[in-house]
Every structure is written in structure tokens, then in C-alpha cells.
């Protein structure tokens, strides 16, 4: 049976419009529009911000590129310990011609690490065989004591190194280092001074100067910025050799205790040669003396450190001042009748030279009385300021570590008796170098020179004027006459017109007073006198020689022959051509030569 579906009854017509009972919500929401000006300005702000960010970013990049481009390119970490530029830690020292005075060589040091040793006992035995000064028991004890490290030898030879290698002991090791060497041995030992090791390591050791130029220029020599450029001294090796030889033989001949010599360029103050005997080898500098007077040690530099009463060599300074002040001229007659009494002192001459002498003859005969009278005319104050202007009151500015310690001995008070004695070189103690500087300043035409050990580059400005060039010429002429007809007649060398003054002073005894039989004999001079080139000072300590029938201690018999031999040897080496023309000894020549020079 088929059931029929009931037809669905559709309720209502869907298309019938229905009246909504609930009113539909109105969707017309009013969105308030923003202010276009505001929007614009905000966008602008954002854009600006972005721009600034970009500009900053690019600026940083640009700056970085700029700095990279501007800086020097640097190799990233090339080269090892031994680079190409830094050859040695300490620069060489050369003489004025570039001849080596001090240099470095590589050396080998020996050290031990007992922990690495296989057999410490046999190692110590083997070492004792190679190095005789090492004691077996001592080192056996040390190697087995548990210490980690020992320095054995600071510097061993290649043969010794091979012998140590042959021991086959891994605990014995070698370190590389540099060693300071003075190839000329004793030559210029006092000037160079010497060096020792400072901080040391197994790979390298620092070299430090002990004395002399080495100590004075310690920082300068080891300055890496100078890339090992050598230090050039004003010393000339050949002249220095001749000086030391002549002084040594002269010292032996005169049986003197010591000798000192200074040769100085009269215009520049360069010290061409300076020697002090006895000397030492800077390669093995002796230990400072623990007993005796330090002045007798070979380490003592008599030319710089030794301050002595040098005697009559001072007279020319007094005379030059009186000429400069116009108190006298070379012909003025001075009363030399003696003895000259001043308080409880009386001043005598070596011989009686008569009652009156001209100023020239006061120098030629070396009259103490005449010089003292002239000094009284000058007066203490002017004398002091003159000697001060010559640098005789302070230590020399020469470039040696010892120089600042060598103060001249000057009286604290300056009564008339000091004025008188100092006028002929007693009562004031200066070094030979002081004297050479003073002589150079007075005799080179009258301008002050500063002593130096460094070779000067280029011409030197003349220093402040001390005396006029005419006074300088007159002083030189007087000194020349000392040699031709005075106390220094043995100084004459054909061709080189030496002018100079002798000085003999009794040595002060430490107990007070003066020794009778111990003198300091000095010759100070200039050559050639009419056209001064070099100043020479020779000082002998306690000389004596049997000559012409009696024992002589005066400088005329001791220091003068040595100085003359020195000039004979040294002047040709300095390239000075001898002039045998007798016309050069006239006073007119002195004036014209000086005029031509200035």
C-alpha cells in the first residue's frame, strides 16, 4: 500500500513582506576623519627618522672606511725575535772617523735546569773538567738540592760550548745574548767606561753602561727609535793611541805615579784625545778599590776627576785679565822685588829674577811675585768673576758619567792672600780638563768654548766673549816666548810653534801642609801659537828625573819634554802642516791670523 505523503502545508508566502517588529539597527556609524595635516606631519617625522638612521649608518661606514684608508698598512705579525730592523739592543760607539770603539758580538751563556738532568753528579764532574774554576762538590750539591735553575757561565767560547754539548746532558742549556766588546782594548778606557749585564733572561740580556760615555748615554744607546745608529765621539783613535803611548813612556821615564793628557780643538771644544794613566781595559773593568785612596786606582780618570793645584799655568789667565781690563800692557814694568809679604804669608819666586820685570817677562820667567801684584790690582771680585766665566768654579759639562762629581776646590772666603795665590795657581784645584777649557777659551781669539766628547756636526757658533782677540793674540805671543826663551824651552818642535806655560805645584799632604818632594807638574799650551788649532795639557803626578846633574821635579824638565814629543807625534796625525818659515813668529802674524779667522 502506498502511503501518500501528506502534502506539506506552507505556512506563509515567503515573499510576503514582513513588517519587522523590531526595527533594524541603523549601521550608519559616523567615523570621525583625522586631521590630514596631522597625518602628514607624522609621516614626515617617520621619514625623517628613517633618513637620519640611514645617514648615521652610512656615515659610520664612511668614517670607518676613511680611517682604514688613512692609517698605514701594517703587516699582521710577521717577523720573529730577530727582525731585520732591530739588529742589536745597543748601538755602537765610534770615533770621529767612524772607527769602532765599542760594539756588540753574540755570545753564549750556559745555564742548568737540574730537573732535566739525567745524571747530575757526572754533569758536575764534566763541567769541572771544562771550566777549571768550577768545583765538583759545590755543583754536585747544588744540582741535587732540588733547585730548578742555575746560571753557570755568562759567556762561553764556541769550543767550551762544544765540550758541554759533548757531555750529552739535557739539563745543561745555552742562552743567546749579546756581549759588549771594546776591540781596541785599553784604548780610551776611561772615556768609554765599560758595561755589564742588567736584567737577564735565557733568550737575551740587557747591557747597561757602568761608567764614562757608556753610562752617560745609556738610554740614548739603547733607544730602539734610533735603529742602532752609532754614537760618534770626537776622539780620534790614532791620536789617542799616540797620546797614550807617549804618556806611558814619559811616565816611565819620569818615574811618575800617574799622568793625564788632554788635547782639545781650540775653537769647537771637541776633545780629540784624552788619556789618564794608569788605565784599565773596559772589556774587563776592575772592581772599584776597597782600600787606598781612590785617586790611585786605575779606574780614576785624572784628566776629568782629578782636581789638583796646577800651579803657574794659571798665570796667563791673570795676565790676560789684566790686559783685558787695561791695567797693564805687555811692556808694563812690574815690581818683582821679594819676598812679597801679606799678613803672615810671604810669596817667593823660584829664583831671584831682579827687582823689576815687564809683564811679558813675568810670564816668561814665571814670577809669582809679579803675578800676585797684578792680581792685587785686579781685585778679588773681578778675579772671581773672570775665573767663573771660564768655568773654573763648577764641574765640567763634558759627557762623562764621572764629570758632574768632579767639583773644583775653591776657597769659601776670598781674602787678598787667596787672590794672590790663586793668581799663580795655588789655593784652587781644578782638573786638567778645566784648564784645557780655560786655555782654549782665552787663546782661541777670546770666546768661551764648552768641552765636549761628541763630534760636532757643522760649524760651531763662537761662545760669549771672554777677552778681546788682541788680548788673546798677546797672551799667545807671551806663551810662545815662554817656549823660545823661558821655562818651557824643551817644548820647541820645529815647524809647530808651540806656546805654553809650565806649572809645578807641591802636592798637599792629607795631614795638612804640602809635601816637599812630591809635585804635580803641568804643561799647558797651544799650537801653532800664531794660528791656534789645538790646546794641549799634560799633567804628571809625582815625576822626578835625574837630569843635568841633579834630581829635577819642575815641569820644565818633566812635563814639557813629554808635551813636546806629544805634539811632534800628534800634530802630523791631525793633518797640521809644519811651517818652517821664521816669519810666522812675529807678533804681526799673531794679529793677522786672528783677524783672518774671525
Amino acid at each position: 500500500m502506498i502511503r501518500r505523503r501528506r502534502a506539506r502545508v506552507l505556512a506563509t508566502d515567503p515573499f510576503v513582506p514582513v513588517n519587522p517588529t523590531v526595527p533594524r539597527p541603523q549601521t550608519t556609524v559616523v567615523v570621525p576623519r583625522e586631521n590630514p595635516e596631522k597625518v602628514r606631519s607624522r609621516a614626515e617625522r617617520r621619514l625623517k627618522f628613517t633618513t637620519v638612521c640611514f645617514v648615521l649608518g652610512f656615515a659610520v661606514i664612511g668614517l670607518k672606511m676613511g680611517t682604514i684608508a688613512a692609517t698605514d698598512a701594517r703587516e699582521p705579525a710577521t717577523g720573529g725575535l730577530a727582525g731585520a730592523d732591530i739588529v742589536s739592543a745597543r748601538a755602537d760607539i765610534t770615533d770621529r772617523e767612524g772607527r769602532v770603539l765599542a760594539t756588540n758580538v753574540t755570545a753564549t751563556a750556559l745555564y742548568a735546569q737540574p730537573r732535566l738532568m739525567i745524571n747530575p753528579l757526572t754533569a758536575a764532574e764534566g763541567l769541572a773538567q771544562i771550566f777549571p774554576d768550577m768545583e765538583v762538590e759545590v755543583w754536585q750539591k747544588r744540582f741535587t738540592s732540588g733547585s730548578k735553575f742555575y746560571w753557570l757561565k755568562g759567556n762561553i767560547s764556541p769550543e767550551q760550548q762544544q765540550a758541554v754539548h759533548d757531555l750529552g746532558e739535557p739539563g745543561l742549556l745555552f742562552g743567546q745574548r749579546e756581549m759588549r766588546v771594546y776591540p781596541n782594548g785599553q784604548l780610551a778606557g776611561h772615556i768609554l767606561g765599560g758595561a755589564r749585564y742588567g736584567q737577564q733572561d735565557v733568550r737575551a740580556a740587557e747591557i747597561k753602561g757602568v761608567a764614562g760615555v757608556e753610562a752617560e748615554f745609556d738610554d740614548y744607546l739603547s733607544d730602539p727609535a734610533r735603529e742602532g745608529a752609532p754614537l760618534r765621539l770626537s776622539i780620534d783613535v790614532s791620536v789617542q793611541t799616540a797620546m797614550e803611548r807617549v804618556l806611558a813612556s814619559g811616565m816611565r821615564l819620569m818615574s811618575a805615579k800617574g799622568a793625564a793628557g788632554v788635547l782639545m780643538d781650540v775653537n769647537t771644544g771637541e776633545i780629540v784625545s784624552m788619556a789618564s794613566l794608569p788605565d784599565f781595559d773596559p772589556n774587563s773593568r776592575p772592581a772599584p778599590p776597597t782600600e787606598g785612596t781612590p785617586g790611585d786606582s786605575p779606574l780614576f780618570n785624572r784628566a776629568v776627576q782629578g782636581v789638583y793645584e796646577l800651579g803657574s799655568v794659571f798665570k796667563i789667565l791673570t795676565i790676560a785679565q789684566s790686559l783685558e781690563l787695561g791695567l797693564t800692557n805687555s811692556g808694563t814694568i812690574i815690581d818683582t822685588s821679594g819676598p812679597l809679604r801679606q799678613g803672615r804669608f810671604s810669596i817667593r819666586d823660584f829664583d831671584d829674577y831682579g827687582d823689576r820685570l815687564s809683564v811679558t817677562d813675568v810670564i816668561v820667567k814665571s814670577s809669582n811675585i809679579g803675578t800676585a801684584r797684578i792680581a792685587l790690582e785686579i781685585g778679588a771680585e773681578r778675579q772671581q768673576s773672570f775665573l767663573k766665566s771660564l768655568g773654573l768654579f763648577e764641574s765640567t759639562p763634558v759627557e762623562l758619567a764621572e764629570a758632574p762629581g768632579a767639583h773644583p776646590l775653591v776657597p769659601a772666603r776670598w781674602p787678598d792672600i787667596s787672590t794672590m795665590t790663586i793668581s799663580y795657581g795655588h789655593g784652587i784645584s781644578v782638573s786638567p780638563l778645566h784648564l784645557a777649557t780655560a786655555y782654549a777659551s782665552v787663546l782661541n781669539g777670546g770666546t768661551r768654548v764648552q768641552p765636549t766628547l761628541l763630534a760636532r756636526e757643522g760649524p760651531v757658533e763662537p761662545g760669549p766673549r771672554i777677552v778681546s782677540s788682541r788680548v788673546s793674540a798677546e797672551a799667545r805671543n807671551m806663551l810662545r816666548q815662554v817656549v823660545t826663551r823661558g821655562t818651557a824651552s824643551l817644548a820647541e818642535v820645529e815647524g809647530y810653534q808651540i806656546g805654553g806655560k809650565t806649572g809645578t805645584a807641591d802636592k798637599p799632604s792629607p795631614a795638612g801642609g804640602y809635601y816637599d818632594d812630591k809635585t804635580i807638574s803641568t804643561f799647558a799650551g797651544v799650537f801653532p801659537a800664531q794660528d791656534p788649532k789645538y790646546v794641549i795639557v799634560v799633567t804628571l803626578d809625582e815625576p822626578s828625573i835625574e837630569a843635568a846633574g841633579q834630581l829635577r821635579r819642575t815641569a820644565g824638565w818633566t812635563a814639557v819634554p813629554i808635551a813636546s814629543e806629544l805634539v811632534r807625534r800628534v800634530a802630523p796625525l791631525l793633518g797640521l802642516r809644519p811651517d818652517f818659515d821664521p816669519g810666522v813668529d812675529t807678533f804681526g802674524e799673531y794679529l793677522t791670523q786672528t783677524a783672518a779667522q774671525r
Partner: protein
Amino acid sequence: MRILLYALSVSVVVILAFWAYGEGYETRATERDVARLERTIGARHQELSMLRAEWAYLNRPDRLQELAEMNFETLGLIPLAPDHFALADQVGYPPPAPLALPTPPASPQVWAEGEALEQKIGDVIVMTYRFGADAKPRVISPPTLADDGEQLP
């Protein structure tokens, strides 16, 4: 098109990477070279300073003096003295060659004559350059030498 672009850029990156690595290795090799050279230069400098020290040591005035004394017979060196200076017209120049005579042609005989010439001249010290050039090299009896051939003072 896009694939091509990608492929191209990837290959460029690869090529650049190879190039950069290559440059890096080359740089390191060069650096090693430079370091080696610097070490060599340093060692040479060290040798040079050693040789300088040796030169200075061998030329020290003491040794030269002793050598001059040892060889005085042949060299006749004495210290320089003031009378060693002379004027230029005091120098003994060789006499001018005679112009008229034709100069004999240089023959080996001249050389062979060297010894005979020396004997003929005898004691006369001839200092002309001709004698010096023609003479046979003379053997100067050497002073005693050390093991290594150095003249020991």
C-alpha cells in the same frame, strides 16, 4: 629568468669564495716568506756586526804597530813625523820618457829580462813605475805565520 639569476649569483659567490681563500693562502705564504727574509736579514746583520767587530779588532792600533815592527824590513814604516810633509814639486815623479827614441815593442823578452835587469841595477833603488811594472814579482820572505795563516803580532 629568475632561476638563471639565482644560478648566476650562487656561482659568483662560489667563485668569490675560492678567490678569497686563494688570496688568504697566498697572503699567508707571503707572510711566511717575509718572515723568513727578515730572519735572514737579521742573521746577516748579526754576521755583519760580528765582522765589523772582527775588523776593528784586527785593526786595533796595538796590533798594527806590532805588525809594522815585524815587517819593518819590507815595509819600513815609521810613525808620521813633521818632516814627512813635502811640497808637490819635491815628489820624485818618474822621468819623462825620451821622445826621440822609438819605444821598443813590448815583447815577452822584456819580462824575461826582469831578473837580469834587477841584477844589473844592483843596489840602486829604482822607484820608477817602469821597473815596478816590468820586474818579476819578488817573493818577500814572509814572517812566521800562525796556523790559520794570520800574521800574529
